[in-house]
């Protein structure tokens, strides 16, 4: 397998990178949706993020990346309990994946050859404690989408089929990407993603040249390129770790809560998920920047990505919703 392109060497696309880093700080934010043109580095960023993140400690041989023997599901074969480190899992969910492959199914091999009833874990088990990446999420079959939403929300995968009754942890950050020209995402699904960002091809020639220059350098000599950028990646990794540690201590004042609520009311977003995500993202932002209290600056920075996909959508509205969010933020915070 080829080494992924280093995260810190990705040129531009700040919003996308920021959103991904924030979910690394607080996985509870709940997923990132990246919508935009082809060839804008969506897949590159996701795979780079995996390489950037600190490794996780798992029980050796665990099919669900269990953090301790106690977390190991009871249906799985008992393990000696050796621990080892693996890179943060980033699992690709290909279009057209069958339900069996996603949630897991009866292990046909063992059922037929040894006559045992055993469960063969699917992609959701492998993505536990990591990332689940769906390219072209807007083209995914609806029943798989429903299923994913349900699991992503509850953090648990429940299988009731073929005489199996099994559950296991499936806490992962859902990263979806797609091109809106090829079909829309149902509003119900949009809302379940914590953050959403739009990416465009850079129009600035210098930026484009820089992208190509780095990519060409990486392709000709990956090792030298990685050596050059690894220190940068390490800085980001340390920042993420520091932010994770300081996240519980980040203060949230009543005024911030008030701001959140007021913003969401002004935007007319449905339900309370908007407020919750906005607050959580702003806290992660504060932690990432090393601040001890959430301020309006943090909220301003994260409001577009946390709220733009939650607006009641006028299907025929053409103006970008990010701009609508920014305008409202300026009004409310004025």
């Amino acid at each position, binding site marked *: 397998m080829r080494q992924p392109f280093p995260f810190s060497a990705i040129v531009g696309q700040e919003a996308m990178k920021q959103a991904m880093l924030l979910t690394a700080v607080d996985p509870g934010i709940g997923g990132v949706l990246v919508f935009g043109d082809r060839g804008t580095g969506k897949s590159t960023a996701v795979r780079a993020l995996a390489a950037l993140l600190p490794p996780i400690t798992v029980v050796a041989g665990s099919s669900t990346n269990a953090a301790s023997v106690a977390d190991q599901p009871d249906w799985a074969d008992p393990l000696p309990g050796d621990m080892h480190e693996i890179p943060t899992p980033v699992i*690709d969910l290909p279009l057209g994946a069958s339900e069996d492959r996603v949630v897991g199914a009866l292990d046909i091999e063992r059922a*037929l*050859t040894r*006559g045992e009833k055993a469960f063969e874990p699917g992609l959701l088990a492998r993505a536990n404690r990591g990332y689940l990446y769906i390219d072209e999420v807007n083209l995914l079959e*609806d029943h798989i989408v429903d299923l994913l939403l349900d699991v992503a929300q509850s953090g648990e995968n429940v299988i009731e089929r073929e005489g199996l009754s099994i559950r296991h942890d499936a806490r992962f950050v859902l990263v979806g990407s797609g091109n809106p020209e090829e*079909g829309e995402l149902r509003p119900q699904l949009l809302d379940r993603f914590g953050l959403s960002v739009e990416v465009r091809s850079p129009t600035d020639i210098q930026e484009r040249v820089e992208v190509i*220059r780095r990519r060409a350098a990486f392709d000709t000599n990956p090792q030298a390129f990685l050596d050059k950028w690894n220190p940068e990646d390490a800085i980001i990794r340390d920042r993420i770790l520091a932010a994770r540690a300081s996240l519980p201590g980040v203060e949230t004042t009543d005024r911030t809560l008030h701001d959140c609520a007021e913003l969401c009311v002004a935007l007319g977003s449905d339900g309370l998920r908007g407020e919750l995500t906005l607050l959580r993202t702003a806290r992660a932002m504060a932690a990432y920047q090393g601040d001890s209290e959430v301020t309006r600056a943090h909220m301003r920075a994260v409001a577009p990505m946390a709220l733009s996909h939650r607006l009641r959508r006028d299907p025929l509205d053409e103006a970008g919703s990010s701009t609508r969010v920014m305008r409202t933020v300026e009004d409310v915070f004025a």
Partner: protein
Amino acid sequence: MMHDATEAWVTGQLALNLLAVDPAGLGGLHLRARSGPVRRAFLDGVPDALKSARKIATNIQDVQLFGGIDIAATLNAGTVVMSRGVLAEPVPLMLTMAERCPPGLAARLAQALDAGRSQALLLLDEGCDEEESAPKTLTERLAFHVDLDGLRAVDLTEMALGPDDIADARRRLPDIAVSDDMLALMVVTAARFGIDSLRAPLFALAAARAHAALSNRSEVGEEDAQIAAQLVYAHRATMLPQEEEHEEQDAPPDQDEDSAPREDERPDQDDPDEDGDTGGQTLPQDMLIEAVKALLPPEILSALSQKTAGSSAKGSGGAGQRRKGNRRGRPLPSRPGKLDGSARIDIVATLRAAAPWQMIRRAQTPDRTGLLIRPSDIHVKRYQEMSDRLIIFAVDASGSSAMARMAEAKGAVELLLAEAYSRRDHVALIAFRGQQADLILPPTRSLVQTKRRLSGLPGGGGTPLAAGLQATAELARRAIGMGLSPSVALMTDGRANVPLPGRTGRAAAGEDAEQMAAVLRKLNIPGAVVDTSVRPRPELRVLAERMGARYVPLPRADAQGLSRAIGAAISD
């Protein structure tokens, strides 16, 4: 001119050779040609390095791609037999009938290309019209596109490049240098042809390096860049570079001077640059642009407009295509079948089928323990499923359907669209005017697209009702093939006055329309004929009957009323 006809052939052969030099960097080649002697000759010319390509078909199963348990062999042997997938080792792949590639397979192959697990992909695309083409997800990841339509086998010549040349070039490839100027030039050229994706300049760069390696140069020169740009950019271009040469071309050098480090890297080139005015800097760029232009398809304007228009025709069908599926929906009794990865096994039924034979089989194979199950016992689950709806709007955009009516029709389509959006229906739009009918919007769920196409809908000219119906029937048939269930909303004032090509006269126009209506009826799809004329006309009622559609007269409709009436007519 023979030269023009063989141009595609020569560039195609060159692309193949470059691909053989750097398969991983260039991704592959999208070959659009019908099966025949020309294609066979072209593929015969594939360099040895790519000759080993594994042929795969569009119905390839996951087990064959990625490897997995070979169920039949496992059962026969009594121990687990694993099969190796095609992607287990990086080999060149050749996908036949690529125009029928389902989105799921495209996504898997794209992923394999991204991860470097597949070395070069040859897409054999036999699509016959613009809409029918290999998925964009894949073509985007392949450097080259070769269109062999219109070539005759007798014109063709062999390109002589021995395996040694390729092997030598491969060895030289890692050491080929690219100057920073050349790199910038590639990017600028791509931008000027309106190519947004950043994969294009990367491919061009790789192609230029491969060409330099083939020509035994240690650095990418102008000729390499020129050929690479031709091969990679020509089919991706979405616009022609602006012709105001001076303003346009002064800009890039200006930007160059802003970026200090780049100037420092090549101080020796600064002088001629300044002396020669814009000449030194812009000349190679001009050459690249001219080179790409020379290879742009001849009917450039129509090709370009179609390219932007049809850009997502294929992808949009994505979620709807596999709807004949056997994996969900209302369960049906299970049937004996083969486990090919697409169907799910019904364990209980399988065991039930095996149970009566256990004694006999045990006697035959006494040394085996456990249940003895044979491949013939396997039952697979079956499901029946409702497929996605597709609403085809066939809109009369002729002069007689006055402009006001046109606005109403557009309004109604927009309203139905918003409704379709919430119900996840697909929408397609056909407009007929003048001499022909055009598919303005292929089946899509994208609101953005529909809105854009709808607002750009032209009006005026005669009423080729027959052609409109024909296009509708064609689209409906294709939609059924994709697993959608289409319904038709025809909006017209019924004054058919343009017959199908080859006939003349108003009477013929009417006859043709009725004939096409009968064709539509045979498809047995629900529909509504909306009469938009000021006074309802009996002809249209007859036509609706022939179509097997409901007739909805709307002498004074507003968009709301129209939308309600159509919705009611086609929903049952």
